[in-house]
């Protein structure tokens, strides 16, 4: 081949791309750009960004019990948890303060993995740019709370699996409670009390006691 043939062949490639940009789709050598704010790629279900806290039905029913495991496992230590105490200075199973510093968090997803109560999950929301570092990027409990429905919406596969698991655990616990209640009723012969225990709502404002 003569000198310069390589150059000409290479130039034909770019010319082809130039022409394709007018007549072809993105998967056939055309324009590959996605014009972001207007057009968006489909979100991947497993996509993980900053974590959020899940609550069931109402924000009061958050699953977090302030066990501090996620804060301890977190590699960059961006989670701060302070347990809530009642009037008698008795520790409650919920956080008074739960904050995540988004400037420190590195989206690794270890908190989600480690949480034994399925309370913290990785979010899909990535449009969190802000100029206020303390106000907008140091997120407090209120801002972190998101409903289980939201979780079901963004990650249906994981959420349904976890819901099923929780429902199963709930059913087991209920059965155990009922068994215990029946046992107690039988032992103490106090049917009134047992009935009251059985009528107790499934997810009370007070967190369920772990066995």
């Amino acid at each position: 081949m003569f000198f310069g043939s390589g150059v000409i062949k290479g130039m034909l490639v770019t010319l082809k791309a130039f022409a394709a940009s007018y007549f072809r789709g993105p998967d056939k050598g055309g324009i590959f750009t996605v014009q972001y704010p207007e057009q968006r790629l489909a979100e991947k279900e497993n996509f993980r960004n900053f974590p959020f806290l899940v609550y069931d039905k109402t924000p009061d029913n958050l699953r977090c019990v302030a066990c501090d495991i996620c804060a301890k496992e977190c590699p960059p230590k961006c989670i701060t948890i302070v347990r809530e105490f009642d009037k008698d200075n008795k520790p409650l199973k919920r956080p008074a303060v739960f904050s995540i510093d988004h400037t420190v968090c590195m989206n690794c997803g270890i908190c989600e993995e480690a949480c034994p109560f399925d309370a913290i999950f990785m979010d899909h929301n990535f449009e969190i740019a802000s100029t206020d570092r303390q106000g907008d990027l140091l997120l407090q409990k209120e801002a972190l709370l998101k409903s289980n429905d939201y979780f079901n919406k963004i990650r249906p596969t994981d959420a349904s699996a976890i819901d099923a698991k929780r429902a199963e655990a709930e059913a087991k616990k209920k059965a155990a409670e009922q068994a215990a209640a029946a046992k107690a009723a039988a032992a103490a012969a106090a049917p009134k009390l047992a009935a009251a225990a059985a009528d107790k709502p499934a997810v009370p404002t007070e967190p369920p006691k772990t066995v």
Partner: protein
Amino acid sequence: MEFMDQIFVNLKSTVLTLAGGFLPPWAVILLCAAISLGVIAVIGPVTMMYLTLIERKVLARMQNRIGPNRTGPWGLLQPLADGIKMLTKEDIVPKNADRIVHLVAPILIVIPALLVFAVIPFGKNMIPADLSVGVLYFLSISSTTTIAIFSASWASRNKYSLLGGMRAVAQMISYEIPMVLSVVPILLVTQSLSTGAIVRAQGAYGGWGWFVFTPWGFAAFITFFLCAVAECNRSPFDLPEAESEIVAGFHTEYSGMKFALFYMAEFMNAFTLSALAATLFLGGWQGPWLPSWAWFFIKTYALIFIMLWFRGTLPRFRVDQMMNLAWKFLLPLSLINILVAGFWHFANPPLAIGGSIAMLWASGWIFTRLNRDYTPEKRTYLFGE
């Protein structure tokens, strides 16, 4: 057709005739010059502004992107936005810079870029000034750019600038020589230095008698165009402003409007050199069906597209390779080409065609062989296990 072709010419003479009714002759002459100057002063910067947009669009398209499309429809206001940005940017002068030369250099570089518009035949009867030494005027004026670039690089007191300046001077001087020599065959054949006369000489075969269709014209066109690309520091000859090596070369230390002036000069040079190449080899405004000025702009922008295409595809030469191409390939080729043009002129047609093609092909082959060090090696790759 004739009306469209001469629309600008007639417009101007109407204005001048009207003005002649109440103005003295000397004022009409001044007015005539002023109109030409005004047109150039508008065409130059506007060309530059939209060339930046075209460049970005074309490159983007070659790279599977869209390019600027947010400012106005199809991004048409992008140059305006860029201009406003450039104007409002802080003008930074390095502490140790030679302030006066630093200021003067960008002005010096724009002046020749604007001056050369004077001899470009934009269409039939549309030369701002049909000088008898038009081509020479173009080449000599554009050769002064070197000094401006050098002043810029020296005055910045920046080592990258200095390296860029040294590269620029070496490159521009080297490529001027084959560029001038590649024009010589045209001058020999047309027996004129006037750009208007050269275009008129290509009017044979109903406007298809372009010099690029002759063997010597083709060789000269390739040589001239490569030199033109090198002269306006565009890829693959963008060594003076090689971004990946010396940041921005001679204009590293320029910001704001001064930088914009460098940019403007570069794009106007690209335009005028393409225009000259179109004039000399592609028949200028000659061509059927369309108005003459349309042909001129089509040809010029086609050449500009090739420049952008180069930029979108090719890697950059190294300094020694760039010099080698000029001195060991283009220069001897353009010298041979002068002989070939003479041969073509005096020999009989069949012999002239065959002979000149053979001569050019042979010399091209010989020069390639002589530059063997620069031809790609064949390599065989072994595989382990």
